[in-house]
C-alpha cells in the first residue's frame, strides 16, 4: 500500500486565517452556540473565578482552594467552588484513523486545515481551545489554552500528527473521558463506522455544552479506478471482502455512503448536533462559515 504524502499537508496561511477569523467572529461571538433542541446549560461548578459555593474537601482538590475560614468554622476541610468558565472552552477533535489517509490523504489534509482555522478563529475571540486527536484511542492531546502562543503550540502539535495508513480504527468515544468541565466540541471526522459513530457522539454530547460534527468526505472513496474481481481491504480493520468492481458496484457504494450520511444527519438533527457534510473538494473557508452560520441560525 502506498504511503500518503502527509508531509505535503499545507495549513492555511496567516492571511487566510485572519480573513476567516474576521468572518467567523460574529458567528462565534456568543459563548453558547447551540443547535436546535440543545438543552439549557445550568450554572455548574468548575474552574473559574466567580465564587459559587463550598463543599467538603476531596483528595485531589487544590490546596489553594481551601477556604480556611469555613474550614475552621466547620472543623473539617472545606474548599471553595467557582462558577465554571468552561462554557467558553472549545475542544477540537480530529480523526487520526487510517480511513482519513486513503486516496492521497485528502480528507486528513482538509480536516487539518479546518482544525487549524477553527482554533485560530476561536483563540482570536479569546476562547480557550484544546485539541484531541483520536484513533484507536486518544493519540494526542493539547490542553486548552489561550493566546497566540497556544495557537503556535497547537500548530506544532498538528504538524507532528500523521494518520497511520493502516490498522488505525476510529474510537471517538475514547475522547469523552478527556472532556473535563463544560466545553463546546468540534469533531472533524469521516464518521466511517458501522453506526456512523452515533454512539460516540451521544457519549460526547453528554459531556459537552455543544457539539459540532463535520463529516469530511471524498467522492473518490467510492469511485475506484479498479475494475473486475478484487480483494477489498479495510485499511482500519484489515478485514477483506471479495467483490466485483464495476460501475454498478461503485454506484451501490456511493448510495451506501449517501445513506450513511443521511442517517448521521438525521441523528444529529434529533440530538441537537450541528452537522455538516464536507466534501473536501469544497473550500474550507466556505464550508466552515456555512456550518457556523447554520448552527447560529438554528440556535
Amino acid at each position: 500500500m502506498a504511503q500518503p504524502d502527509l508531509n505535503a499537508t499545507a495549513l492555511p496561511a496567516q492571511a487566510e486565517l485572519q480573513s476567516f477569523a474576521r468572518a467567523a467572529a460574529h458567528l462565534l461571538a456568543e459563548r453558547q452556540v447551540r443547535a436546535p433542541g440543545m438543552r439549557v446549560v445550568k450554572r455548574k461548578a468548575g474552574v473559574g473565578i466567580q465564587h459559587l459555593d463550598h463543599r467538603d474537601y476531596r483528595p485531589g482538590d487544590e490546596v489553594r482552594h481551601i477556604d480556611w475560614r469555613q474550614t475552621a468554622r466547620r472543623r473539617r476541610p472545606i474548599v471553595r467552588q467557582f462558577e465554571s468558565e468552561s462554557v467558553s472552552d472549545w475542544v477540537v477533535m480530529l480523526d487520526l484513523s487510517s480511513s482519513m489517509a486513503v486516496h492521497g490523504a485528502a480528507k486528513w489534509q482538509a480536516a487539518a486545515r479546518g482544525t487549524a482555522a477553527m482554533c485560530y478563529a476561536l483563540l482570536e475571540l479569546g476562547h480557550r481551545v484544546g485539541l484531541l486527536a483520536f484513533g484507536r484511542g486518544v493519540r494526542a492531546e493539547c490542553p486548552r489554552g489561550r493566546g497566540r502562543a497556544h495557537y503556535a503550540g497547537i500548530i506544532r502539535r498538528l504538524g507532528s500528527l500523521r494518520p497511520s495508513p493502516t490498522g488505525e480504527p476510529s474510537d471517538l468515544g475514547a475522547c469523552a473521558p478527556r472532556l473535563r468541565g463544560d466545553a463546546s466540541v468540534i469533531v472533524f471526522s469521516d464518521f466511517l463506522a458501522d453506526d456512523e459513530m452515533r454512539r460516540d457522539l451521544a457519549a460526547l454530547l453528554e459531556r459537552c455544552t455543544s457539539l459540532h460534527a463535520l463529516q469530511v468526505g471524498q467522492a473518490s472513496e467510492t469511485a475506484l479506478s479498479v475494475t473486475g474481481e478484487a480483494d477489498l481491504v479495510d485499511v482500519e480493520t484489515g478485514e477483506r471482502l471479495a467483490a466485483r468492481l464495476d460501475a454498478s458496484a461503485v454506484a451501490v457504494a456511493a448510495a451506501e455512503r449517501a445513506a450513511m450520511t443521511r442517517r448521521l444527519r438525521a441523528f444529529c438533527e434529533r440530538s441537537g448536533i450541528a452537522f455538516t457534510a464536507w466534501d473536501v473538494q469544497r473550500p474550507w473557508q466556505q464550508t466552515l462559515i456555512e456550518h457556523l452560520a447554520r448552527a447560529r441560525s438554528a440556535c
Partner: protein
Amino acid sequence: MLSFATPAWLLGLLLVPAIRWLHRGGAQLRSVPVASLALWRKTATAGPSAGERRPPDPAWRRRALAAALLSVALAGPRSAAPVERITLWVDDSLSMLTRETDGTRLETGLAKVAAELDSRPDAEVEVRTLGNPWQRQDGLSSETIAALVRDAGQREPAAPPAGLLHADRRHWLLTDGADAEFLEAAAGIGFSRVFPVGELTRNAGIVRLSARRSLGDRKRLDLELEVSNGGDTAEERIAVLSTESGEVTRASMTLKPGASATLSAVTPMASAVQARLEPGDALPDDDTLMLDTSPLLARRVAADPACPAGILAALQAHPALSVMADAAATDLAVECGGTAGTADLEGMPRIRFLLDHAPEPVEGPLTWSSNVSETQRGRLDSLALRTSGRLAPPGSSDVLLLAAGPMPLIVQRRGEGAPLMETALAADSADRDRPVAPLLVGFLVDQALSTALLDGVAVAARDERSVKVVPRDGAAGTAKAAGTSSLQTRDWTTPLLVAAALVLLWELASLLRRWRRERVEAEAWSS
C-alpha cells in the same frame, strides 16, 4: 499403443499436485484498500463461508498444464498405430504388354490390384517397377496406372534391391511369371501377395537385327535377323526385311517352342532397315524391329591432289570412305601441303601429312599415347615407318598420339574448330611388301572421326527373355504367409513441446498483464 523414450521424465507429473497445493490459498486477487468495507458489503461476490478455504487460484490449472506438458514431452511419447504399408512391385517387362481378352496383362493386373486396394482405404501404398525399382510412386491412382502402362516394355524384370525390401512393409508382386530367371531370383524374397496375370502362351518375336558392310561390296549391307519363339507352341512366321527403297527379302520360318531361327540377307546400302513378322500375335511390340544403318554409310572425303599417290590410293581403297571431288560437301579432308580448297575445309575434321623432306627412317623407340588401343598400335608397330616432315611440338590442348623419342610423329590438334590430325610419317614404305599408307590412313581417319569405320556393325536387339510370354504358376508359389501388420510410429514430442510453449507464453502474457494492472493501481493509489 503409447510408449515413452525416457519414462523418468514422467516423474515431473508429480508437480501437478504440488502446484495445486501451492495455489490452495485462493485466487491472487488485487488488493484494493478502501476506507471502510461498510460501503462495499452489498457488492461482495459469493465467497466461501467463514472457516472454509477459498477456492484456489485458477491460474494453477494453466501452470499445472504447462508442467504436465513439459514432463510428458520430455519423456518422448510415441504412439504406434497398426497400419498396413504396402509396396506394390509391378513387372513392367515387355511380356506384360501381351494382349489378353480384357486388355494387356499390365492393365488387367493393375485393375485387379486397384480393386484389392480399394478395400483397404487406410493402407499406405507405394508403387515400384521391377525395371526401375528406385523410382517410387505413391498410391495406385489412375495417373500412376497410365504412367506405368506408358513406360512398360523397356526393361526386363530384375529382383528388387534388398535395400528396398523394408521389413515393415508388405510387398505385393504383379507379374505374369513369364521370366523364369526373375522367378528364381524372387523366390527367396517372400512377397506377401502375388497377383498373377496372363493366360496366352503363344508368341514369336524378333530378338535381334544386325547389319554390316559387305566385305566384297562397300555399297551393300549384310543383314542378319534372329527370331525366337517365346511360347509353348510351334509357330510359323514369315520374316520380312525392308528398307526405304522397298522390301528386300521375305522368308518363312518354323519355330519350335523356345527355339530361335536366323535369317541372313544382303541389301543395297540404306540408312534404315525394318524387320517384320507376319502374321502378328498377341504381343505386337516384338513383331517389328527397326535398325538404323546410317552409321554404316560411306564417309565422304576431300583429298588434296598434292598428296602422294599412295595416300590417294589408300583413301580410295578404304571401304568406308568415298573420295569426293567437291570439298565443300565432305565429312573429312586430307591435306598434303596443297592450297586448293583450304578455306572451304575450315570446320571439318582434317588430316594433314607433312612432306617437308625426303623420307627418313624413324629414329628412336616409338611411344604411344594411352588414347590409342593396343590393336591400333600393333598394326603400325610392325611397319617400317619413315618421316617426311617435322611436327611442331604439341600445345597445351593438343594430344600427342605417337612420338619417336623427342620427335612427335602424330599429333591431334584441338583448336576451336574440328580436330586436326597432323603426322610427320611418310606414306611411302621402305618395304614394298608391307605398305604403310592403308594402315596409316585408316588409323588417322578413325582418330579424326572418333570411330572405327572398318569394324562398323549396326545392331538392334532386345532381350531374349522379352519374347517369352508363357505365364508360370511358380510366381504364386513364391508367396509366403502374410507378415505381421506394420506399425506406424508417431513421435508426439514436438507437438507437446509446442503446446507447452504456447501455455508458457499464455502464462507470461497473464503475468505481464497482471504486472501492468498492478502498476496502474499502485500509481492510482499513490496519486
